């Protein structure tokens, strides 16, 4: 079984639109949305939810005012300034470390588990999909990413499908690290802007750090041909395959507004042809 993660470093380079286009080109796969913090793939895939589960992770301290003697030990120990002078825990600040719970001499602090979001197994017109929704302001996005990836893998095994296509989060931090560890390959979708290139280089370093083979494609390449060339040069120097270049095309937005992939919106766009070529190169490279 192979698992491809689409990432970008910088947000808004076109990860999800390209991922949706891949979903319509690939056969025998499970789709997975690992951008649990701002998941958008479902807006095009229109999943029919077959199973819904709560995601529980981490705990938050709650002081029982009736048992609290205001001795102040918790205030001294808490490194997050999460406990007010009248001994109430601010759940936004609480890290869930449980130090106050452990040391409270009155055992006055509860430590209930948090429900931080939910995850789903769904059917779409392009095959099964595992996705999730992290609650607003919640922690543990990395753990939820790990969970959806594991469930996608189980589903692929159960249905005898050989490929998992995963839409990853932006950045290089916790959720991205959780997304790419142990994957067969990552595809970095970048754009020829100073920020796109800067962020692509950081996420390429991250992939190298975790020893996950990286490939790139350049979206909106005609916006700045000099930078496109710079990105290609960088990729070549680092031994990263550039699978192709997609011209700037508002068709991505128009298709998104209709809840469609760009192929459903228009079968003959230039951007669509470029994506088909990228998919073809990717399938060869990954031996799909």
């Amino acid at each position: 079984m192979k698992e491809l993660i689409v990432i970008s470093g910088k947000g808004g380079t076109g990860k999800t639109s390209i991922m949706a286009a891949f979903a319509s080109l690939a056969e025998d796969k499970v789709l997975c949305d690992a951008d649990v913090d701002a998941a958008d793939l479902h807006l095009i895939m229109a999943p029919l939810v077959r199973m819904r589960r709560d995601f529980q992770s981490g705990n938050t301290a709650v002081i029982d005012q009736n048992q609290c003697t205001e001795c102040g030990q918790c205030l001294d120990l808490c490194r997050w300034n999460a406990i007010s002078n009248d001994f109430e825990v601010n759940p936004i600040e609480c890290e869930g470390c449980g130090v106050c719970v452990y040391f409270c001499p009155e055992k006055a602090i509860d430590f209930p588990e948090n429900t931080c979001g939910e995850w789903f197994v769904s059917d779409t017109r392009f095959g099964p999909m595992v996705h999730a929704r992290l609650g607003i302001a919640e922690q543990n996005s990395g753990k939820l990413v790990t969970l959806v990836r594991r469930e996608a893998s189980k589903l692929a095994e159960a249905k005898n499908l050989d490929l998992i296509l995963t839409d990853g989060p932006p950045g290089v931090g916790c959720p991205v690290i959780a997304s790419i560890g142990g994957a067969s390959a990552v595809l970095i979708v970048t754009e020829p802007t100073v920020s796109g290139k800067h962020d692509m280089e950081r996420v390429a370093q991250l992939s190298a750090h975790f020893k996950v083979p990286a490939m790139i494609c350049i979206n909106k390449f005609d916006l700045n041909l000099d930078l496109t060339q710079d990105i290609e040069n960088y990729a070549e120097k680092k031994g990263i395959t550039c699978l192709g270049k997609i011209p700037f095309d508002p068709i991505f937005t128009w298709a998104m507004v209709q809840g469609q992939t760009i192929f459903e919106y228009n079968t003959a766009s230039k951007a669509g042809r470029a994506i088909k070529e990228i998919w073809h190169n990717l399938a060869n490279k990954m031996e799909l």
Partner: protein
Amino acid sequence: MIISIASGKGGTGKTTVATNLALSLGAAVQLLDCDVEEPNAHLFIHPVFDQTKTVTAPVPEIDMNKCTLCGKCGEICQFKAIVVVGQTVLPFEELCHSCGGCMAVCPEDAITEKSRELGVIQKGYRNGIEFIHGKLRVGEAMSPPLIKKVLAYTDPAKFTIVDAPPGTSCPVIESMKKANFVLLVTEPTPFGLYDLKLAVGAAKILNIPCGLVINRSDLGDDNVKAYADRENLPVLMEIPFDRQIAETYSRGEMIVEVMPEWKEKFLKLYEKVKHLVT
């Protein structure tokens, strides 16, 4: 006054708005780039950096001469960052949240703290603007402690603009929670709207007033505006799609410098925000 520029969805133009707003206002402005995973504002501001500081987090160090392998450290740790295995104690630094629990609980005082590098903070200037950003070390998972350290540079005597990371989880909350106003940069597309709703939810949880900037405002549909009307969210600025703006951005140049007519618009945006805050 602190305003935090956020979006939910990435790539909607947070950094464009933050940097052009800062440059339009000039001196007495502080720009803090809290998107420490992928900081970009410096690519447009081009500050001259005069300070670089390594930021660390405390992690446990065990003196095995004192340790009796009682296992209390592993018991208190909620993050599985320290365990007793056989005749030794293994700390997993990358999982450690630096709560100090293991050190507090150790009956033998065998645990002290050492520093683990999270990234760097750089400080510099451009046209009188004070610029500070954090850069997470590649391979490091935990951004909130670094964001906290960047925000510690907030100067109450100045107008502080915070460039927040995308999303709505802990790093975004960290970047928003001290703000007097959250400026949400969005685009009129289904992805833009869906993620905008999450970001508005985050501002509501924190009880901070917010307003919108709609970028590429003519490339999409009318649903963001309808939502803003419904929710009583003021639309403070609209930036239509313009290939010249996109190309200016791509080169790391400032819109207010290449297309000076935009300076007036960013100043107006500032006036509107100021009016809403006071």
